[in-house]
């Protein structure tokens, strides 16, 4: 059995702080919770544990075996075998940039290439080395905007059509701060230009999603212009897969772009680890949270090399005065995205995005043709759309699952009065046969 400390270690430590015993050390903890009786199973041998876990594992249905129309922020896309093969190489297989980073040139080069992909997709000038996930990246983006305003502007306007989990994360970040998160009371189905009325001199940024939570694609030109006229920033939360075919956020003059990089070569994996993307314009590069890798050359031999750049502002040097206290990146996930993007290339990415778009539009038109089902999405959309069902969405999903189909996202979980609404996500992994199966299943269950 593993013991982190020997009895002698403990005695020495207790003596050093002047406590007689462990019991005395923990006296401050209320007695009833001090040594709670944990109802844990008996210890297992490796073989027993393996069998128990294998039993649980067989209850899973691998996503690939079932038609799956669940999205809402995490998407099932094809992950080429090469992604895992390269990712699992011992040289790469750690999530961290090392604390003596320049010794790991391969890791830094991979991060630099990741940053280059993000810049190409978003049209921004600088990307960081990645964040935990899309939601934290969005919260860091708002925090950046607050910092850029010299902490003078005390409000962010968040689109009501932003992913509800992202809004929650932003709320959590700013709960202790004297900073207001607005936009919650607005109608999530309205045109984003209605946000313009909420912008004032005290607005640090306006946050919109592209495509929005419901999959809709809007033109944010007017909103960006209104934000800039009031001295605030336009923050765009993107599904980067959609950027394979949509206008880059830079064309709306976005100041900060963030998003969830999971669609790029990262499996659904029960919700993580995922990949937060965060990029900005050159003029805000010093406010960019986290690490940035730069390319340089050595002075003697003129060889190309990679370094952590602008790190004088980072947490490990500036401590509590750093622009962000998230310092580590999702190195391994960023590498997966880099391999994915390098493999599919610019044209390949466009093809994947277009397949998602076309499959989704086929599915939407087929479902719209069913009696009792109504296509609620009446805007341009990418690969997700909302349908009003004749029954509660939960019942529909249950019935679909019995037929071997994973249905859509139950929007009523997040939005009042939408208990009958389902949001379907369609990707390149939903071929026509799957969609037809969904449509005929819906017809039967309605």
């Amino acid at each position: 059995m593993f013991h982190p400390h020997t009895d002698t270690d403990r005695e020495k430590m207790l003596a050093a702080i002047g406590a007689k015993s462990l019991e005395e050390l923990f006296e401050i903890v209320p007695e009833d919770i001090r040594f709670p009786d944990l109802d844990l199973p008996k210890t297992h041998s490796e073989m027993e544990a393996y069998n128990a876990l294998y039993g649980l594992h067989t209850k899973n249905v691998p996503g690939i075996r079932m038609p799956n129309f669940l999205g809402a922020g995490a998407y099932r896309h094809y992950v080429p075998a090469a992604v895992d093969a390269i990712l699992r190489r011992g040289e790469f297989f750690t999530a961290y940039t090392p604390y003596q980073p320049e010794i790991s040139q391969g890791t830094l080069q991979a991060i630099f290439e990741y940053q280059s992909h993000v810049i190409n997709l978003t049209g921004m000038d600088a990307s960081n080395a990645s964040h935990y996930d899309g939601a934290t990246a969005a919260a860091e983006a708002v925090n950046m905007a607050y910092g850029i305003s010299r902490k003078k502007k005390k409000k962010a306007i968040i689109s009501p059509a932003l992913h509800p989990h992202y809004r929650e994360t932003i709320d959590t970040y700013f709960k202790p701060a004297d900073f207001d998160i607005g936009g919650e009371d607005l109608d999530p189905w309205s045109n984003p230009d209605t946000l313009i009325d909420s912008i004032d001199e005290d607005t640090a940024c306006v946050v919109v999603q592209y495509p929005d939570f419901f999959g809709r694609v809007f033109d944010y030109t007017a909103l960006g212009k209104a934000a800039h006229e009031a001295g605030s920033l336009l923050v765009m939360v993107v599904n980067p897969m959609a950027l394979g075919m949509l206008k880059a956020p830079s064309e709306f003059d976005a100041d900060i772009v963030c998003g969830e990089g999971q669609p790029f070569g990262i499996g659904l994996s029960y919700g993580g680890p995922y990949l937060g993307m965060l990029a900005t314009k050159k003029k805000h590069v010093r406010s960019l949270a986290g690490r940035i890798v730069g390319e340089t050359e050595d002075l003697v031999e003129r060889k190309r090399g990679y370094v952590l750049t602008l790190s004088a502002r980072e947490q490990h040097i500036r401590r509590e005065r750093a622009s962000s206290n998230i310092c580590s990146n999702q190195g391994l996930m960023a590498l997966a995205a880099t391999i994915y993007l390098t493999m599919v290339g610019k044209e390949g990415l466009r093809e994947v995005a277009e397949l998602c778009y076309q499959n989704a539009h086929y599915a939407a038109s087929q479902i719209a043709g069913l009696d009792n089902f109504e296509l609620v999405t009446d805007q341009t959309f990418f690969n997700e759309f909302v349908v009003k069902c004749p029954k509660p969405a939960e019942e529909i999903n249950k019935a679909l699952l019995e037929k071997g189909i994973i249905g859509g996202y139950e929007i009523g979980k997040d939005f009042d009065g939408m208990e009958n609404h389902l949001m379907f996500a369609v990707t390149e992994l939903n071929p026509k046969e799957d969609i037809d199966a969904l449509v005929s299943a819906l017809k039967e269950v309605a």
Partner: protein
Amino acid sequence: MNFPTDLKYTTKDEWIRVEGNTATIGISDFAQDALSDIVFVEYAVSEGDDVGKGDTLGTIESVKAASDVYFPVGGKIVAVNEDLLDAPELVNTDPYGEAWMIKIELGDPAEVESMLDAAAYEADTKGRE
């Protein structure tokens, strides 16, 4: 190393020049030399702000480090030298002239009295070398 005698200093390397009720603030020749090449200047405050002695004025970043600059005295900010944002190297070339950072209307002129004169500041920097 230059320690102009018409200025007052702090042990954190800020200088001020008092003219009437207005004080101009910057960082010293010793500080810019210690930081080496300055690559970025950032302000934490804007014109019109009321600030107290010890508040953060901004950050000066060199190739070596990012250092915070503090207000040696309190008062109301009447001017911010935004030129430094585009030309941070001025802090290296002219720390007491073109690289002034902020002008402030003194809140409490007595605060100036507690600052170091050039000789005392020079002695302080010697102790740190």
